């Protein structure tokens, strides 16, 4: 069983191929503005390096958000077309889940992604138990909630934050794939980004405000 992992939800490309519990190859690269230019190219080179044809992949695990709207769509479009065209199984996972399972700690683990204007995408977990599920939240509000828990906590992120206890995110692609590979596969037509946030135009039209 060969599994292709794709995460383009931030300005990094994280991709890898896992075969029978072993990591065959991986790419972890930062792209500031040209992720759309190189994501598929890098994936194709990685397969080539492993002497694999597109059809040799059995399953795709793709991160569907939250994160950069454009970034998410890059990996999702590739994965969606790939799974649909070659009839491969496809599973979507949360970028925040990928971040938290990549780190080993008995403390509270808080993956966060900068959502700008003082907001973040974040979740809070302890020993794989969810304390706060994935959400779009004001950083100040999140910090307040964490302090109320009165326990040690660590952040995981690949953004720059002026916070204590920051662990820079280095995806453990093998662990991520092993953790989620048996999730239920979805019809490729129906996989969708999980933006966790409406567009501004929709918020204005519906009078939604996130001031939590």
């Amino acid at each position, binding site marked *: 069983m060969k599994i292709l992992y794709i995460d383009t939800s931030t300005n990094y490309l994280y991709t890898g191929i896992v075969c029978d519990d072993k990591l065959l190859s991986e790419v972890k690269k930062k792209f500031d503005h040209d992720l759309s*230019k190189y994501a*598929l190219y890098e994936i194709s080179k990685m397969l080539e390096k492993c002497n694999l044809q597109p059809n040799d992949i059995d399953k795709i695990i793709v991160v569907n958000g939250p994160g950069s*709207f454009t970034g998410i769509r890059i990996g999702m*479009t590739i994965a*969606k077309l790939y799974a649909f065209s070659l009839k491969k199984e496809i599973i979507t996972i949360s970028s925040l889940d990928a971040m938290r399972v990549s780190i080993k700690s008995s403390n509270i683990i808080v993956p966060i992604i900068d959502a700008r204007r003082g907001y973040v995408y974040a979740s809070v977990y302890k020993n794989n138990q969810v304390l706060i599920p994935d959400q779009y939240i004001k950083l100040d509000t999140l910090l307040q909630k964490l302090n109320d828990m009165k326990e040690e906590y660590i952040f995981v992120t690949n953004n720059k934050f002026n916070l204590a206890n920051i662990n820079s995110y280095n995806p453990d692609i093998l662990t991520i794939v092993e953790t989620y590979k048996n999730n239920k596969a979805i019809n490729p*037509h129906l996989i*969708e980004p999980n933006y966790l946030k409406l567009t501004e135009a929709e918020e204005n*039209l519906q009078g939604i405000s996130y001031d939590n």
Partner: protein
Amino acid sequence: MKDIYILGIESSCDETSFSIVKNGTEEIATVISSQIDIHKNYGGVVPEIASRAHIKNITFVLEECLEKANMTMEEIDAIAVTYGPGLIGSLLVGVEAAKTLAYLYNKPLVPVHHISGHIYANNLVKRLEFPLIALVISGGHTELIYMDKDYSFKKLGGTLDDAVGECYDKVGRVIDVEYPGGPIIDKMASIGKHTYDLPIPLNDDSYNFSFSGLKSAVINLVHNEKQRGNNIRKEDLAKSFQDVVVDVLTKKTMHALKEYNVKNLILAGGVAANKGIRNKFQELCEENKINYTFPSIKYATDNAAMIASSGYYAFKLGRRADLTLNPLSTDELK
């Protein structure tokens, strides 16, 4: 000679479309998923909403296109995709999809400029005859282009500010008609009278256009009439506005045909569906013995058939992109 089947992909604005065209002229199947009903709520296209809809629709549209054509990806000779200009987030979904298909099936990838697509929409009606002048008019473009052969584009002029379709939609908003205002104004103009005095924009010898002044003139006129307590006769305003637009478009286009001694004119782009504009050109072309082609309504607005048709000629010229093709929000036609 072996038949060439091109799969076209278009996603530059608010239409997700796939099409298969044989030998550049014969449409095999086209599927268009329009988002117009979503964007109506906002009075115009919202880029992020458009991008979200594209990724939601993309595989459905591809599947339907292949089914309609009764073909498989293996039978396709090359994949042609709009790389720009357009909304960057929208373009990105189509370009990533095209690159992925090119990779998975090991097919040549052909980058197509959106405007060349609009021009080649006419090639699906009737094989283009050269030399020709193309007037491209849409929500995003207003350009006069000279072509002496396939894929040789010489831009004579273009808009310096708003595109003509954009101007129509903005005028539509001022007189409270639903988005997109263009087709409604065209209909209203057909029963109105030219009673309002509006300036002819950029009425010079160049091949450039300007529509922002005309738009402002309409806004001011409506404002002043309201201040005076007068009702706007919308049909008459629509007619007065459309007359000015038709006047400047036809004047510059006919001038170009004469100066370049060209006997073929094609209209292209969504605004080419405007009856007032079409009919005036028809009249002038008959008078001046010019061969005149305009696309049928389905080929005038954004669609992938025109991208596949244009892509065929680009393919034959050896134009190729690799897996690093990146969408461009602006780019000159070349």
